[in-house]
């Protein structure tokens, strides 16, 4: 019963409405052996028989309404060349190195639960557990200091947390740890839906895109899945598209880093690159030619394309489709562009300034290993005018002020905004307290370099320690919020642009693809810490190489089981597979003043498309689906369609 979280009484009530077959004794025994409770087995035995409502086979295909913009038929007529192709991205799994799981301790005497869930959502777990467990959310204390990967798959407590909690209660409150093994992690703990599409692109000889037509499909498991934002980034004026979601009895889809975007990029950027190849145009020039279709981030794309060109040596090294040099190993270049929102989520925090000068921040956020702690401390230290080492940061605990789940690249904008406001609020309280002793108004005071001084007269000053000592016995506390519409301006923003280029070598005899170099140029508004920001991009490139070349959830047509729920056949890039990675973060005018924008998702969008385009450029034919495995590369070469 725990496993599907449907309480026995609900099952019993449903059974009372009748069932369409009489279960045999053997079947009843089997149900019991499989964990059905006695009341359920009894209800099953006594359930009235009812007429079957007839064969109601639900179609696994769910076709969405056709979407049309402009006049695609006329635009295709106007086109001087039409490129047609098939593209796709397979289902992949999250494959978190720390698998999903939890440690639960439910003390039956106090009815308090100490919960440690591997999660991206510290503040949001208790609320999801309360009702199913029949316990007030306020009785659940959730905490977690580190998480070994989530990528969008760890927002809920999941079935295993409930099981662990129930088992703990049965064991008198002893902590129960339940972590998925590798097989379960890959089978059930989340999958990125697949996307496939037949695409037609109309272009003029000067490179102007006139029209887009696509018929796409994909599966996100039993739920089918949603449509994809295609054509991606380029809002082609005349387009017609239709998506069909396919429901399958495979593991359920879950948000995977930049949901829908990597698939949309793999379909769109490859289709557009093929269109450029059709008219013999360098895709760099082709993208620039059509840059107006990219909308408000157009200027960013142009700046980033130019920088990526320099870092990759694109213009010096790009060649027409098909490396004409001798030997089986062919080299090529590919590019892709991407976008994402990334506005900061709701986030509250508490600031405490102690009379001894120490500072404490409490926030119910989490650090996924991306540098959230570093960023919060930098923002707070900068606002308070003191060193990072004087601040104690407490996160990862549901006892702290609520902060949003780390998904959709929303964390950095949320936590930095609330930290900034909390620090300013706390500082203002401190300045109000000490202003009389400096014979100044609070607004005349500046806090910088561990000193509080009167603006324009630095000789009238107190050290941070001296200033805090004036608080007396009691510390001061202040709160910081995001969003906080009463205190403009908004410190976070939305909408980024990114450009990536890949340089690959393909062994046309074996179909093995090696990435030689990748360039990523990325903006995310105001960068708080360049090192951890760049690290996000490095990680995304490595993850991108993995899904471009290796990752695929392979389902057995005979047994319906996942065949590769292990890290031998579910390959991830190893050190030796990671090439030279060049990351350039856009900073300075035009970027800094936009405010803080999230970065987790955007850099993982383009690698698949960029690498696929580079392979097409190298070998002269399109390998339609990622991952670009040897069998697919060889099949494409043998088919030989350019």
């Amino acid at each position: 019963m725990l496993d599907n979280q449907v309480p026995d009484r609900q099952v019993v009530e449903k059974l009372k409405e009748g069932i369409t077959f009489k279960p045999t004794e053997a079947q009843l025994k089997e149900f019991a052996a499989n964990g059905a409770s006695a009341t359920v087995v009894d209800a099953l035995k006594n359930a009235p028989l009812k007429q079957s409502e007839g064969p109601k086979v639900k179609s696994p295909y769910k076709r969405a309404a056709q979407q049309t913009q402009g006049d695609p038929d006329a635009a295709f007529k106007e086109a001087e060349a039409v490129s047609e192709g098939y593209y796709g991205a397979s289902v992949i799994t999250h494959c978190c190195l720390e698998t999903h799981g939890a440690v639960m301790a439910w003390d039956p005497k106090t009815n308090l639960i100490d919960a440690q869930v591997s999660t991206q959502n510290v503040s949001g777990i208790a609320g999801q557990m309360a009702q199913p467990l029949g316990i007030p959310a306020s009785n659940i204390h959730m905490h977690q200091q580190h998480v070994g990967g989530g990528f969008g798959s760890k927002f809920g407590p999941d079935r295993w947390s409930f099981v662990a909690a129930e088992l703990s209660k049965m064991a008198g409150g002893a902590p129960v740890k339940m972590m998925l093994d590798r097989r379960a992690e890959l089978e059930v703990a989340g999958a990125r839906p697949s996307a496939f599409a037949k695409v037609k692109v109309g272009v003029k000889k000067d490179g102007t895109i006139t029209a887009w037509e696509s018929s796409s499909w994909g599966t996100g498991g039993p739920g089918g899945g949603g449509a994809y934002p295609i054509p991606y980034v380029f809002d082609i004026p005349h387009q017609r598209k239709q998506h069909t979601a396919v429901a399958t009895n495979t593991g359920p889809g879950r948000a995977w880093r930049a949901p829908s975007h990597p698939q949309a990029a793999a379909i769109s950027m490859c289709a557009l690159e093929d269109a450029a190849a059709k008219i013999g145009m360098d895709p760099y020039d082709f993208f620039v030619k059509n840059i107006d279709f990219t909308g408000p981030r157009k200027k960013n794309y142009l700046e980033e394309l130019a920088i990526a060109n320099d870092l990759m040596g694109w213009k010096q090294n790009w060649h027409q489709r098909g490396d004409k040099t001798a030997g089986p190993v062919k080299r090529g270049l590919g590019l892709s562009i991407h976008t994402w929102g990334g506005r900061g989520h709701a986030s509250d925090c508490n600031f405490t300034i102690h009379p001894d000068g120490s500072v404490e921040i409490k926030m119910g956020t989490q650090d996924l290993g991306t540098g959230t702690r570093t960023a919060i401390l930098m923002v707070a230290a900068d606002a308070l005018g003191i060193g990072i080492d004087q601040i104690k940061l407490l996160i990862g605990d549901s006892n702290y002020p609520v902060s949003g789940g780390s998904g959709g690249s929303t964390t950095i904008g949320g936590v930095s905004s609330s930290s900034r406001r909390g620090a300013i609020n706390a500082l203002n309280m401190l300045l109000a307290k000490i202003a009389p002793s400096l014979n100044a108004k609070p607004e005349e005071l500046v806090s910088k370099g561990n000193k509080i001084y009167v603006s324009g007269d630095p000789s009238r000053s107190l050290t941070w320690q001296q200033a805090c000592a004036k608080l007396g016995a009691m510390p001061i506390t202040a709160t910081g919020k995001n969003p906080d519409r009463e205190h403009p301006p908004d410190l976070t923003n939305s909408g980024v642009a990114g450009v990536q280029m890949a340089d690959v070598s393909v062994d046309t005899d074996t179909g093995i693809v090696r990435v030689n170099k990748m360039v990523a140029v990325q903006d995310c508004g105001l960068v708080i810490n360049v090192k951890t920001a760049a690290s996000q991009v490095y990680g995304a490139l490595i993850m991108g190489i993995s899904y471009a070349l290796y990752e695929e959830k392979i389902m057995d047509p005979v047994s319906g089981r996942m065949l590769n729920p292990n890290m031998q056949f579910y390959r991830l890039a190893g050190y030796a597979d990671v090439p030279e990675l060049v990351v350039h973060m856009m900073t300075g005018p035009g970027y800094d003043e936009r405010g803080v924008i999230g970065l987790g998702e955007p850099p993982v969008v383009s690698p698949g498309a960029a690498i696929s385009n580079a392979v097409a450029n190298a070998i002269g034919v399109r390998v339609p689906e990622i991952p670009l495995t040897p069998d697919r590369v060889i099949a494409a070469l043998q088919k030989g369609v350019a």
Partner: protein
Amino acid sequence: MRQFEYTAPQSTQQAVGLLGQNWAQAQILAGGTDLLALMKDDIEPPKRVVNIKHIPGLAGIQYNATGGLRIGALTKLSEVADNADVRRNYPMIAFAFDEAASPQIRYMATAGGNLCQRPRCWYFRNGFGLLAMKDGKSMVADGDNRYHAIIGNSGAAKFVTPSTIAPALIAHNAKVRIVGPGGQREIELAKFFRTPQSETEREHDLKTNEIVTEIIVPPISGVKTAQYEVRQKQAFDWPLSLASVALSMDGNTVKQATIVLGAVAPVPWVSQEAAQALAGKPINERTADAAGQAAVSIAKPLSRNTYKVQLTRVAVKRAILQAAGGQS
């Protein structure tokens, strides 16, 4: 993992006594890099684990020019890969050991264990049995066989041999020494591997109460060797196909060639066709490719692994060309 009895015998005699009459009764633990995974995945749950690591004399490398090379079964892969005598006299063997698995695994896994490791077939590893038969039909043939055999696959066994050191050793005419209740025996490594016909058989000649104790490689001179592995990843990845080549030369022409294929058949496949194609020929792109073609002339790919035919042809060709250009 299921409960099991743990034993740690001090001698091969004791160990043999602890082994059972069938595989489910007892399993040998050496490096443990395969057995533990099999036990955790409930693929091979033995009632008793016989840890042979405490038996003295089963590890170590001995070499002399007249006697050849002896590798104790418990010798770690890394020790063989790093051994100066092996590197100097048997560079292909050193290469094969050095390319296997990952550094961490090479420090744990043993030479004997590598030969006895179970197939990586994903039907086997998912609990469908070594031959993965369902209602008398092969799940592999009807299912996803992209990594399965293209040669020697007409019977029930369609998995591929996983060892990447065995082809190199076989190309050097290695033997293995085996100890059982009746004493000691030696068998050519090429004959050690067998294609099982039923679910109760194994993919090697070892009886349930026998232990591999030593690998014996005869002395060589004037033989050019090379192994070529086609791998998706550059490291820590089982090859999709591999070829080990040993060439005895007569001036510029091949006197005798031994060409062993890995990852393409249920056993390391000694390709007579490739050897014949090369005999008496000089080595160049054309003859090497012809040998590759000959090697796959008998290939019968399954529904999804035709690409492996080309990979194997290329692996043979490249191994031959590398051997010709390499040390003798």
